[in-house]
């Protein structure tokens, strides 16, 4: 069982992710913004972070950079959620250090596939 941190200011998306990942048996923990996400990532050492980009306090881009700047979290896969389907955002996020992305709206299968891809038991 892996710990997966979902960072999103939208409780419904967090809940959706939680419900969607429940069958995989992972422990899903939540944070409501980037700053909280960074704290939780440092504290809980998740095996995967799924973060929104557009968030108050600290946005997803900043969170990705901050996670990458944390030596203890080297190699942590980070997936971002985006509604933008254009490549600019993806390039920027990849440059910041993201591992992959999920385009909203996504289905449970799509989400599970991405998680299975990046989290090995």
């Amino acid at each position: 069982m892996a710990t997966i941190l979902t960072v999103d200011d939208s409780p419904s998306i967090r809940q959706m992710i939680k419900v969607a990942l429940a069958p995989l048996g992972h422990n899903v923990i939540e944070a409501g913004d980037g700053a909280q996400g960074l704290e939780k990532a440092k504290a809980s050492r998740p095996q995967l972070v799924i973060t929104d980009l557009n968030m108050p306090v600290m946005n997803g881009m900043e969170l990705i950079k901050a996670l990458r700047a944390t030596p203890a979290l080297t190699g942590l896969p980070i997936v971002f959620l985006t509604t933008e389907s254009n490549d600019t955002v993806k390039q920027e996020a990849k440059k910041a250090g993201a591992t992959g992305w999920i385009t909203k709206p996504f289905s449970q299968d799509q989400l599970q596939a991405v998680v299975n891809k990046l989290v090995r038991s």
Partner: protein
Amino acid sequence: MTTLDPVEVFRQEASDLFEALEGALLDLGSRPDDRELIDTAFRALHTIKGSGAMFGFDKVAAFTHEFETAFDQVRKGEISVSKDLISVALSAKDYIRALIEAPEGTDSIIGDAILDELRRFVAPAAAVVPAEAPSAAAAAAVAPTAAAARSRGWQLHIEFDRDVLRNGSNPLDYLDDLRKLGTAFATARTEDVPLLDELEPELCFLKWDVTLNSDCDRAAIDDVFMFVQDEMVLSCEPLTDAGAEVETAIEAPAPVIAAPPLAPSAPEAAAPLRPEPEKPAAAPAKSKGDEQRRFDDKGLATVRVQAQRLDELMDRVGELVIAQARLSQLAATTDDISIKAIAEEIERLAAGLRDTTMGARMVPIGSLFGRFRRLVHDLSRDLGKPVDFVTSGEDTELDKTMIERLADPLVHLIRNAIDHGIEDTASRAAAGKTEIGRIEIAAIHSGAQVLVTVRDNGAGLNAARIRAKAEEQGLIQPGAVLSDDDVHQLLFQPGFSTAQTISTLSGRGVGMDVVKRTIDAMRGSIDISTQPGRGTTVTLRLPLTLAIIEGLLIRVGEGRYIIPLAAVEECAELSAEEERVRGRDFLNMRGDLVPFLRLRDLFDVAGQPDRHQKIIIASSGETRVGLIADQIIGSHQSVIKSLSKLHSDVTMFSGATILGDGSAALILDVAQLLAIGANVGDGKHLNEAA
């Protein structure tokens, strides 16, 4: 944790977002350049769009997309915020809300009209950025060949960027994924791996050749490497019986690798390349604890609980408190020290649980105030009366059920203040007042009460007009002698209305009588003060909670009663001297004259009073009254049970509670007793015979 339906969570969340959006839009009216407000509005829209699409609200997503586009331009400074834009945005918000909450009642014609309006604001230069399909470029590159390229397998050559590990990608995982497509034979090519002392453990020097036996198409392979397409060179050749033949080679933005080719080295050097996440075996358990602690320390996290569950919890706590009171009563009669100790412990725990539960039910009143801003905005526009709306004390917390119940009365008071209180612009100018009226709504704690005031700087109440209207409607006899306060109270009579012209706001069927009934039902009271030409202030005095109070249990004759402890200032024994002077109605409390009431007389109790009468000084604000009882039994956590409708004529009691022995005890209505006491002070003796 319980599993909530995400769609339901989304509805709740959307409702919050609408409030945030509306607040931001309204604030933008006065501060059109406030970046934070623009960001808030944009973010709310963005979330509604994204989540809406997730949960199947496609119309919401499509509509919001255009709305968001407009705000994105505002955010980028391409268009500026105007009053018109805010108005359209508010209608757009209402439309989205309707799409979510009552889609069957919406009409796309309205939506289209709103969008047309919105588009007028959108800067033409930056019109909607054509949305590219997810990884459109890659898909396009692959598509033409994908269909044709079915074969018995693929020969792959894989070369990752050296820093691919930095982004959390694990090349070995991708190779594993290939195996899901079929049997794969991978050979690591180590020619680029440097000597050990030059080896950077965070870089990837290995390349792979993979023979994949699978009938998958090229797109399936691209899917495997979807996230790293830009950070690798991948060549795929279909395996044919005839042999290998290069079909395509994707060389996405050519990776700039500065490192010169290095001499081949020992293959073992590849071993440390696999990034082992540094986590000792014990870590997961510990980190969980860390998380929990953070949760508590920071109070960052919030959990949404259905209101009904909180109500149920409160009911359970109420029952627990009653059961605990019975236990305490039993324990008091026993000599068993250990039972006494347990009873005390349970009492402490029950009190703690009660406080926590009540705390969980407390909600800042600001959420309610936020709703009124739109009301004021709309009313002000409809009536052509410019109004500043000022709120304060948003952090003041009240029981959530009270907040819900307060909404309608406050709407009515605000409506009244703008409709009847604030004069039209011309009258204001003539009276030498600022053209823009002012409505203030404020909340503040005052002891065990919360005061909510609605204040306007309008014309003030016109006592003569109220009087005339009341006479016309037969509420009072012509020429009846009434104080100004009495006249103001007429406003609360059912059916009373002084509006001289019927405005668009009339006909709602909610009168001040309903306001008063609602506030009464909450054990609150309403004061009105007004100054002609200066304005009117309506003050609602409300208890903090509806559920449980700390009470003082007293005995009067055979009956036991509760006085809300928050209203009790002090208790004392009535001195023999004061006892003898029965004609006097005042006590001398350190120089202050305090009127007092003999509860035995008030409650019509037969028989002889106890020898040592006790006096309890109860107060609210500046007013005090002494209550004389036979005995003070002690403090009592009282779960408030409202009195039956059949007892609505009973004035001296605000409710009842259940005592440890299971019998009911009445809770004194201190406000009423203070009023009776004040009458004593005015010389209107209530119980002269006594």
